[in-house]
Every structure is written in structure tokens, then in C-alpha cells.
């Protein structure tokens, strides 16, 4: 097993990884930017090294600085968490070249799955169902996109070939919209990923986002740990996730699980991964993409399968075999995760500032993952995800009630959060009935205000 692991991340996932390391007897190095010197991950790690200024490009995305830290401070493993460098093949390779273990898949698998048109091709060949879409390596010119769209039939979804996180994504309903939005999406992709290559997919109006958790060791043993339903999204960003999917059947789980395992097997994948599908009303499912890292929402799978996915991923990276077999994996009860964002409830704009009062809920079946503490200043520089509240119970109905009770006990003063939105979702009759698709949250969208309001003074509402 590793002796000292560098956590190449911040926030809740850094805390999560440090805790897992502690339980494995592995020392931890936290890295931090100057903006994060008082962050919780810095405080609970065994060592902490400042690696650069506030801007992520100069710190958490700064590969030379991180590798230099690994070499100077003597780590033998690196965990990338999610976001930042977690799906950067160059970083995985830089780690390998520096003789340090990267907790995650091999660089080539990261790159392969990051190239969406290529991943689609491989899956199609392997018999994993994909949505009808652009063939080959994608399209970068409007006329090619127009030809694809005509063949597919509207509506279609424009996506960035190198994409992720909703960037460069647009739904278009006719040729006119395509002409208008394709250049826009392409420009977004270019800005975000430095790539003009796009691809088109048939757009399903009412589909659920259902993803399967994969674990694979270095000896090509692959299992899945059931699914998560992540349909509750706002502009392609997940807000609330649950396991199991409320409309899943045993038979469908077996079928989709087999497809997910096949997706990993066909490329010789190892470590944790998530195979994302769209599940249509008629029970048909389609591969969207594979995420080659731990997900934000891994906790709901941990609760219903009684596994520790972060622990497993570290064990696998250290060369150990899978600790369990497919038939040992059962789904017990239901778990819901509410992502708590520091954001204005109305505008969804980030709401950084000082947390003047913090009290996390607790008790039976309530798990909190957070990097907040009383007096902590949520920095403006990074993702506004400040906490995950996971409720696990025997039944989905009880998990909903438990989530609501815990959200009401949660005190986060000084900044705005999306807790009110979560309460709305959990109170929604369609949500409670399990009847929703990825368009669910549109009903709670308010028209954005004419001009984005100034970010409220963080302490003004403390009175």
C-alpha cells in the first residue's frame, strides 16, 4: 500500500480522500492555493503545501507545480478527485513518468473517453447502444452539422467532442436554430476545451439520466455497483442524485449493468468509472459517455451497496485485486444526495462570502460531506459546491422525508445556498412519485433578471 498520497484537489472531495487515506494508514499531503490557506482540507491533512496563487490555472491546474510537490515532498501516489486535473490524460501521464501512482485509470483511457466521438464509435462496435448521431470524428463546419441534423431528424443536441460539464451543449429544434446556435456552441467549446470539433446526437425529449458505477482492477475484473438517477439537473449540471433509480427494474438493471461492464471491458479499463446512459420512456437506453474518475455523487452508491468507493479506488491503484464479486453487490434501501451550492436561490449566481454560522445536521441515516466550518470564507475562485447531504433509509419515501428534515436543520448563515430549491424538489409530487426526466427542473426556473444583480453583501442577510 502507498505511504503518502498527494490529494490534487480541494473542498469536499479532498476531505473525502484524506479520510479514506487515514483509514488505510496512508499519510496525506494537501495542496492549496493562496486563496485556500484556511481551507478545511489544508487543516486536516498530515501535510499541506501551497502550490500557487488563487487562479486555478496557476495552482490546482498547474501540473508542473503539483508534480514538483510530489517529488519535493515525497508522495508515492496522487489522487485527482473530480474536476480540475481528474480527466486530464497529460496529468496522469506526468504522474506515471515521475514514478508516482495515479489513482485512476491509465492516461490512454482518460484520453479515449474524453474524445466523445471516438468513445461512441468504440461503444457502437462493442454492441453498447448509442444514440443516433454524427459519425466519424465529428463535425466542425455548419454545413456538415446541417447534413447530420437532416439525417437524424430534429430535435438534435449539439455537443463538444472534447466536452463535459454542459459546456458547448445546445438543443436545436430546427435548421434555423442550428444555423444560429452551432457557431455559438463551437465558440464555447473552443474557449473551454480549445477544440472546434463538435458532434450531433438525436435529442430525446423525455429521458432520464441513469449512470452505472463501475469498479475494475488491473486484472480486468470488472463489476458494476448499480445505478444512480441524476435526472434532476439544471442546465446539464446535476443538482440532486439518487440510488437506485426509482423506475429501475431488476431485469433492466441487469441489462444496463451488463452494457456498462462491457463498456469498461472493451477498452481494458481499470479503477473507478461511471458509464452514463439516457434512459427513454420506452425502456430503451443509450450510452452518453464514460467518466473516468470518482463522481461527485459516488456517496449514494456507497450507502446502498455498503462499499467505500474511494477506498476501493486507492486499493486498486496500489495493485490490489477487487475486494468483491458482482454477485455480492446488493442494493439496500434508497439514498438521496442533495448538492449544496453557495448560490443565490433566485439567480443561481455564486454566493461567496463568510459563513457566519454553520451547523450541519446529523443522526441516523444522515451523512454530510462538507468543507465548511463556522467562520470559513467561501472563496470566489472555485466551484460553488460546498456540501453534500446524503440521506439513506429503508425506502425512497423515508429517504425523502429524512432529506427534508436534515435540510431544515442545516444552518449556513452569511451566504445563500440552494437549500430552498432542494426542499421544493423533495416536496414535488412528481419527484415523490418518481416521475421525472432531465427536464424536471425547468418548472422551477425563474426568468433570469434583466441584469445580473450585484452579489449580495455576504453578511447583510445575517441580521
Amino acid at each position, binding site marked *: 500500500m502507498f505511504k503518502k498520497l498527494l490529494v490534487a484537489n480541494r473542498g469536499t472531495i479532498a476531505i473525502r480522500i484524506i479520510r479514506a487515506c487515514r483509514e488505510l494508514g496512508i499519510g496525506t499531503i494537501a495542496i492549496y492555493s493562496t486563496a485556500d*490557506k484556511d481551507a478545511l482540507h489544508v487543516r486536516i491533512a*498530515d501535510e499541506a503545501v501551497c502550490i500557487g496563487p488563487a487562479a486555478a490555472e496557476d495552482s490546482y491546474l498547474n501540473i508542473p507545480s503539483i508534480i514538483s510537490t510530489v517529488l519535493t515532498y515525497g508522495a508515492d501516489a496522487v489522487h485527482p478527485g473530480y474536476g480540475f486535473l481528474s480527466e486530464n490524460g497529460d496529468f496522469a501521464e506526468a504522474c506515471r513518468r515521475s514514478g508516482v501512482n495515479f489513482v485512476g485509470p491509465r492516461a490512454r483511457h482518460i484520453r479515449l473517453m474524453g474524445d466523445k466521438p471516438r468513445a461512441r464509435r468504440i461503444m457502437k462496435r462493442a454492441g453498447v447502444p448509442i444514440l443516433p448521431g454524427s459519425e466519424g470524428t465529428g463535425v466542425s463546419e455548419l454545413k456538415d452539422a446541417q447534413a447530420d441534423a437532416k439525417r437524424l431528424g430534429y430535435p438534435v443536441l449539439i455537443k463538444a467532442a472534447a466536452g463535459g460539464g454542459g459546456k458547448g451543449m445546445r438543443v436545436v429544434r430546427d435548421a434555423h436554430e442550428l444555423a444560429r446556435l452551432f457557431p455559438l456552441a463551437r465558440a464555447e467549446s473552443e474557449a473551454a476545451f480549445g477544440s472546434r470539433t463538435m458532434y450531433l446526437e438525436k435529442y430525446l425529449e423525455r429521458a432520464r439520466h441513469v449512470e452505472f458505477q463501475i469498479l475494475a482492477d488491473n486484472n480486468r475484473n470488472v463489476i458494476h455497483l448499480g445505478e444512480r438517477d441524476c435526472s434532476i439537473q439544471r442546465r446539464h449540471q446535476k443538482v440532486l442524485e439518487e440510488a437506485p433509480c426509482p423506475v429501475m427494474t431488476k431485469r433492466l438493471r441487469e441489462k444496463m449493468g451488463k452494457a456498462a461492464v462491457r463498456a469498461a471491458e472493451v477498452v481494458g479499463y481499470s479503477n473507478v468509472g461511471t458509464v452514463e446512459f439516457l434512459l427513454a420512456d420506452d425502456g430503451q437506453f443509450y450510452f452518453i459517455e464514460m467518466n473516468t474518475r470518482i463522481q461527485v455523487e459516488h456517496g449514494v452508491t456507497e450507502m446502498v451497496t455498503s462499499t467505500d468507493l474511494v477506498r476501493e479506488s486507492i486499493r486498486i491503484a496500489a495493485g490490489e485485486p477487487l475486494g468483491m464479486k458482482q454477485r455480492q453487490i446488493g442494493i439496500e434501501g434508497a439514498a438521496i444526495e442533495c448538492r449544496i451550492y453557495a448560490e443565490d436561490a433566485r439567480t443561481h449566481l455564486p454566493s461567496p462570502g463568510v459563513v457566519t454560522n454553520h451547523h450541519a445536521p446529523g443522526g441516523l441515516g444522515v451523512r454530510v460531506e462538507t468543507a465548511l466550518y*463556522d467562520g470559513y470564507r467561501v472563496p470566489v475562485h472555485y466551484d460553488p459546491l460546498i456540501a453534500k447531504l446524503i440521506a439513506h433509509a429503508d425506502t425512497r419515501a423515508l429517504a425523502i422525508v429524512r432529506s427534508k428534515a436534515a435540510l431544515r436543520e442545516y444552518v449556513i448563515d452569511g451566504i445563500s445556498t440552494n437549500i430552498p430549491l432542494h426542499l421544493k424538489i423533495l416536496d414535488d409530487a412528481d419527484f415523490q412519485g418518481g416521475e421525472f426526466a432531465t427536464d424536471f427542473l425547468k418548472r422551477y426556473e425563474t426568468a433570469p433578471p434583466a441584469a445580473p444583480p450585484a452579489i449580495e453583501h*455576504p453578511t447583510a442577510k445575517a441580521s
Partner: protein
Amino acid sequence: MEVRELKTLLALMQDFGLVELEIEDKKGKVRLVRAGVAPSAAPAPPVAASKDIAARTFAPQASRGAQKSAAAANGARGAEPPVIAENQKLVASPMVGTFYRASSPDSNPFVEEGDSVRKGQTLCIIEAMKMMNEIDADAGGRIVRILCENGQPIEYGQPLMILEVG
């Protein structure tokens, strides 16, 4: 007094434009004065204190200190920033790496304490990813103190030397 969240108070002082804050405790006396009012020759708030208290807040309740390595102890986070005079400046590391005082084990150190240096003169080397990065003086002056040991790991922004300018 109850200094429950002095760090937060300090942040709030800043946020609310307080120029004065007086607390005397054993359950007595507080005085808060906001900017724009007369008595304002207040000294700058001790910013460093904020960090110390922040660090203390989460000080492990058991003796986890023993596990903390030199890295944490010496790092920008762990140590008191050295106190410098008005005509002095800190030479801080622009990168993470290893601090070397000489270009090779058998060379003389670039500088010693007390040495005068001219602008652009090499003061030390930070090795990062096998690259030797020379750190130069950005002003002429005299090296008052060298804050790091040869071969020591260095964080981003960590003070390396104190340079007396002029």
C-alpha cells in the same frame, strides 16, 4: 473576553469598515467604531492574528502534531511570517521545490548573511522537477537573514531571505 471567532471578526471588521474594536472581558465592555467617524488614527488590524486563530481553531485535540512533517511546520501556513522592518523585503519562492544555496554541493553559497547584493544577482536555486531555477535579487541591498536550510522543501510563496534594500 470570548474571542469566539476573532478571525471572522477581523474579516467582518474589514467588511464593515470598522476602524476600532475594543473588547475587555470577564463579561465586560466592547467598543466598535466604524469608519467615517472621528477617532480613526487606529492602527492597522493585525492581519497575521487572523491566520493564527484560524490555525488554532482546528488544532487537533489530540497530539496529531507529531505526525505533521517539517513541510507543514515550515510552510507558509505553519510558520509565523518573519517580522521585517520598513526598509526590508522578503524574497519569496515563486514555486514549489527544493532550496539550494549553491549551484552544486562543492560550490560556495551564492550569498551569506551580511552580504551585499546587486539587483539581478542570483541568491539561491529552487529545484523543481529536476530544473534548477535561479532566484535573483529584484533590488540591490544587503542579505539580512537566510530563512531556509540548504536542501529544504519549499512551498509557493515561502519566504527565503530578508533583503535590506538600498
